[in-house]
């Protein structure tokens, strides 16, 4: 018994030694490991990047791509900890609004040296621009989205707007009819991330702006007061869901999926969720309702390369691969984003009416400006709007206070 055991141990040891030997004999050619920090968009994200990593490793033997997946909520925290500890990845997805901080801290590698005109030409110009600072390109648009009004076809047809409301007045008219029929008209977000953006829809379409040309807060304007008063009056008349300050973006979308709220402003990915979670719900997509002008919000997320990366050549190769047609089409269609490169935009996957509806809004799209203090502004505006929605402050006072708060951080 004991003899047999020791015999087995020798065998195991031999096998281990052989395995070790082979590891040393593995190709010694350029063997880079590229670490990529990736944000969680949906349950599709990780499988997608794992597939891309495997495809790339197959085409470039010896190289390893390591995907590190993080939740959006903790992404900034992870990057911060990694960077401070000097253990950051080679590539990372970041919110484009953080890019300025990356450039200021000299952590982002300018990509212009790697890009030739053909590579640059792959992109839809409007989506590449937010990743450029001071004439240099630091971030490539990995994900892009815009916003539009989703409406419940059944209730809006009954209310007399079968093609969806075109203006805020029509939103109010439709909501009154829907309310009379026992539902909630307009879904208003009043909690957590993008509470500010939900109000910008009203601000922009009423001709206002968040940050002025002088880099100072510009939202405490007559347009701003009009926009805030519009939402507040809708709350007071019971045209929104009650208790708006308890509704995050997901909560409002859930009410829409359940058919309780008839209109909600959201991104293309809601269409994907609706098809999966509420297949019987008939929805339409219309532009963000108009006040005096058309506007929508467009957001990009960027892929950046870290300056301290030791595998820049291979990292770039992987970037180049990610931004070719097939990987782009797979990513964008699976996640429900908008195409950011010209080639992918021609793919049949994006010929559906939903994507087309969003793409057609891009000419009026506003991007978050690359300016320091954008997050502070978002926070100040969100706080102000919550106070207005709760009736704790008058729109003019709340906006003035928020503008003063935002000016403390803007451009600093």
């Amino acid at each position, binding site marked *: 018994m004991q003899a047999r055991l020791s015999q087995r141990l020798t065998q195991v040891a031999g096998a281990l030694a052989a395995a070790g030997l082979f590891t040393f004999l593995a190709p010694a050619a350029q063997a880079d490991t590229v670490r990529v920090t990736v944000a969680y968009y949906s349950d599709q994200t990780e499988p997608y990047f794992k597939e891309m990593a495997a495809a790339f490793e197959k085409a470039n033997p010896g190289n390893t791509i390591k995907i590190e997946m993080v939740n959006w909520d903790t992404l900034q925290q992870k990057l911060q900890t990694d960077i401070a500890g000097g253990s950051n990845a080679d590539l990372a997805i970041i919110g484009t609004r*953080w890019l300025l901080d990356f450039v200021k801290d000299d952590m982002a590698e300018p990509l212009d040296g790697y890009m030739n005109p053909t590579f640059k030409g792959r992109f839809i110009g409007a989506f590449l621009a937010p990743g450029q600072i001071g004439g240099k390109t630091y971030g490539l648009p990995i994900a892009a989205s815009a916003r539009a009004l989703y409406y419940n076809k059944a209730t809006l047809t009954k209310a007399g707007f079968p093609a969806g409301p075109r203006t805020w007045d029509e939103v109010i008219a439709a909501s009154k009819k829907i309310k009379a029929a026992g539902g909630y008209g307009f879904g208003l977000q009043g*909690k957590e991330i993008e509470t500010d953006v939900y109000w910008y829809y009203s601000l922009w379409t009423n001709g206002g702006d968040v940050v002025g040309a002088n880099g100072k807060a510009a939202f405490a304007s007559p347009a701003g007061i009009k926009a805030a008063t519009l939402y507040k009056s809708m709350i007071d008349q019971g045209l929104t*869901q009650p208790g708006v300050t*308890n509704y995050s973006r997901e909560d409002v979308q859930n*009410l829409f999926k359940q058919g309780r709220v008839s209109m909600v402003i959201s991104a293309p990915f809601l269409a994907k969720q609706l098809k999966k979670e509420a297949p019987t719900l008939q929805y339409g997509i219309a532009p963000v309702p108009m006040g005096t002008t058309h506007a929508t919000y467009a957001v990009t997320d960027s892929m950046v390369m870290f300056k301290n990366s030791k595998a820049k050549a291979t990292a770039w190769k992987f970037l180049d691969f990610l931004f070719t047609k097939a990987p782009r089409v797979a990513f964008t269609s699976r996640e429900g984003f908008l195409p950011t490169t010209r080639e992918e935009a021609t793919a049949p996957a994006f010929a559906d009416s939903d994507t087309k509806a969003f793409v057609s809004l891009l000419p009026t799209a506003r991007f978050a400006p690359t300016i320091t203090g954008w997050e502070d502004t978002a926070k100040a505006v969100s*706080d102000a709007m*919550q*106070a207005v929605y709760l009736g704790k402050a008058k729109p003019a006072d709340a906006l003035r206070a928020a503008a003063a708060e935002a000016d403390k951080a803007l451009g600093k």
Partner: protein
Amino acid sequence: MRRSAGARQPSQTRLNPWVLILPSLALALFVIGYPLYNIVFQSVHAVSRFGLIRGFCGLDNFRQVFADPVFLASLVRTVWWTLGVVGGAVLVGLPVALVLNQDFYGRGLARVLVMLPWSVSLTMTAIVWRWAFNDEYGMVNVTLQRLHLISGPVHWLASSTLAFPVEILVGILVSVPFTVTLFLGGLASVPGDIYEAARVEGASSWQQFRRLTLPLLRPFINMAIVLNVIYVFNSFPIIWVMTQGGPSNSTHILVTYLYERGFRLGKPGEAAAVSLIMLLLLFAATALYLKIQPREGGAA
């Protein structure tokens, strides 16, 4: 280490205990000291959103924080939060522990049920409660409506007047298991024969509780208060998950304020300053409490 024992021995043996605890002392100093050094360092420097040091800035971070009315409001709210949750946990925990200490059919099951919330992560509990307090389809509103106690949905988390008390209630709920465990340990150490003696002398059950149980439990109550204050003061998930300190900053406590500064607004320097202030406050509160409590032999 008692002085009288040391005095009888030559000086060499007086050093022995120090030598013996030196490894763990060094480890503890390193584990506590390095982060502390780091926080002090960050708090007096301008730090970028992604953690790079941009230069020495003296007490600027502290000045910024103290000039922020939200910080001061959060400070006051932290006191209410800690008092509410710790007070509630002790007040609820004590009778529960007394009941669970009695011999009754199904006591094992009852003990498991009381302990159960402890085994679930705090974040998960908070998420479950966030759903439970949802306006339209939350279990709380649905139940109350079915019982005809309310006519329409109550907006629990929409404003701080309800949201903050609700958060305190959830805080109490998750602190009760730990508190009960402490108390049960204390009750087990109380000898049964003194109650027998008291009964013979004709003491009522209230008198037995007042004169025997409570004084003997005192060290355990003290411990429950001190430990709970430390946990609750620093407790992040409940408020962050349920309201993120909102609406309009009206449910922030210091630790959620700190998180928002550091990881949402990208001001790690100010966040470090807040965490230092919190550390000092906690130190002061604990020291003060231990000082005003009369010294007890044994557990305390």
